[in-house]
């Protein structure tokens, strides 16, 4: 390869692959995997899993919290924390405008939600990144919220569960400041680990780049939803670098399980039960 000359081959924490946005508005939707036309309500009642083929669709933050935590048990922390624009960044659109557009679109201030809650009666600290907001990429807000969540979990001696959904890795609109968030969260996890905290990392579609190369890979136990895209460099970049056909199922949950980087692949319907069981094993 010619890394310096060939522009597309450069790897990056900000690897990119559009998050598959599914369950769009409207009564009906088409499954990305089996092409079945599905009744939207029915999919939602099925935890956003295709009733025909089991394909796991995207789950917005609020639904994910409902799916995993005991009803009304979630107490959100730092809910009003909002992004700023550390670089004064502008591509074809100023980052400030992009943020406002994303906030309007999602109703979220940024891609991350953290807080405490209960899972089948077990108290824990919960965090997640939402791939709907600038591809779930990690800028200052995501880094800061997760770091505080880890620090709180350390202080409160609670288990920590983080559900990752980040196709964007580190957020390039915040440049080097976002790269450093990887170090910041990872350092907090080092302290949590020394304090014998239990961290369960749940990888959902997609978990890439700088998110994969920091907190998402550092679970004591690593769980993945079926067929999620998980990896460091985006498959397009890998293909352009290696110029060979990518192996079947490359960078899927199943691929990572086979290569030793995921402990269990868990269907969404079983996720809450599995997480609670693991917490019990580790004395949570």
């Amino acid at each position, binding site marked *: 390869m*010619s*890394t310096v000359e060939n*522009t*597309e*081959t*450069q*790897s*990056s*924490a900000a690897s990119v692959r559009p998050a598959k946005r599914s369950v769009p508005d409207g009564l009906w939707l088409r499954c990305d995997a089996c092409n079945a036309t599905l009744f939207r309500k029915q999919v939602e009642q099925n935890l956003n899993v295709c009733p025909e083929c089991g394909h796991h669709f995207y789950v917005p933050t609020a639904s994910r919290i409902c799916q995993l935590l005991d009803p009304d048990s979630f107490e959100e922390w*730092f809910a*009003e924390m*909002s*992004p*700023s*624009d*550390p*670089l004064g960044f*502008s*591509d074809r659109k100023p980052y400030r405008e992009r943020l406002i557009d994303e906030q*309007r679109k999602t109703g979220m201030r940024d891609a991350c939600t953290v807080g405490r809650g209960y899972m089948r009666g077990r108290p824990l600290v919960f965090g997640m990144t939402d791939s709907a907001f600038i591809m779930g990429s990690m800028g*200052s*807000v995501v*880094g*800061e919220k997760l770091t505080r969540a880890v620090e709180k979990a350390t202080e409160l001696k609670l288990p920590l569960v983080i559900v990752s959904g980040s196709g964007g890795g*580190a957020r*390039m609109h915040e*440049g*080097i*400041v*976002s*790269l*450093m*968030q*990887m*170090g*910041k969260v*990872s*350092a907090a996890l*080092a*302290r949590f*680990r020394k304090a014998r905290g239990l961290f369960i990392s749940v990888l959902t579609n997609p978990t890439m780049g700088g998110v994969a*190369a*920091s907190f*998402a*890979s*550092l679970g004591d136990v690593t769980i993945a939803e079926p067929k999620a895209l998980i*990896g*460091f*460099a*985006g498959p397009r*970049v*890998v293909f352009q*670098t290696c110029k*060979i056909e*990518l*192996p079947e199922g*490359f*960078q899927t949950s199943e691929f990572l399980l086979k*290569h030793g*980087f995921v402990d269990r692949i868990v269907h969404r319907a079983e996720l809450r039960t599995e997480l609670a069981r693991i917490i019990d094993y580790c004395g949570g």
Partner: protein
Amino acid sequence: MPHVHQLPFEKPLYELEERLLKLEAQPDPTPAEKESMRRMRVELTQMTRERYQNLDAWQTVQVSRHPERPQTPDYLELVFDEFVELHGDRSFGDDRAIVTGFAKLAGRKVMLVGHQKGRNLKERNECCYGCAHPEGYRKAMQKMEMASRYGLPIVCLIDTPGAFPGVGAEERGQAYNIAVNLRDMSTLEVPIVCVVIGEGGSGGALGIGMGDHVAVLEFAYYSVISPEGCAGILWKHARHADKAARALRFTSKDLLELGIVDEVIPEPLGGAHRNHFGMATTLKGSLVEAIQSLEGLPVPELLERRYQRYRKIGRFEEVGQLPTA
């Protein structure tokens, strides 16, 4: 002069230099010719200084990638008195993109970890142009852990376009190995001094970059993504790399302003590629000073400082409003 690689903005410098060399080659110059040569030398110096003081972000990237720019092996010769290379990652293989080993720095024993890009085509291919694989990061972490146990300060020289994006790298856990380095470097009980000597490419750089003192050479850069990669995504084509380079604010001056690095190490007139020895001397001074300032610190204080160094990075509003629909 055998300058193989001339950067576009250096053209006038080389032209002037060539004219001067021609004059100097003449036997028995007249007093007028001597005076003219003297003036040309002054002009050349001024022009070089002026060009290099006003490099834009994209030109800086070009300088940082200059094929004659000193790399880790050059510094091993010019800065360190001894190098005992340690190759093993104990798991898969020896990644030539990262070298590790014992080294002596002004009488001190240290652990050296550095990216290696390679000089000629053969070396570059062996080193994957400085793009490390998981085994490189694992080797680095193992040696740094050992350094921590034996009280050896750690010096990391960063120079990579990024961690290698390949099938094997993904199969062997590129993301996991970088993540582990970020986590575990944060708790090593010896001083860690990191210097970006050329390219600071994203996670591939940070994977050996969690230090107590992080410095960058004047014309190096340190970025979340390569300017070409960023341009390809946000401007839809890599030919806009110059625009991306400006927007990403990754030059040494920006990095200092943003609080990402603690020190900018000045380069010799016209960049490190013109004067390896001069660059090495300055770098050596900086490394020694940084280690000296850290080695007296009690371990808990050292670790707390390192934690806070990264803890404080990030810009956000504690309370922000959502836009009204």
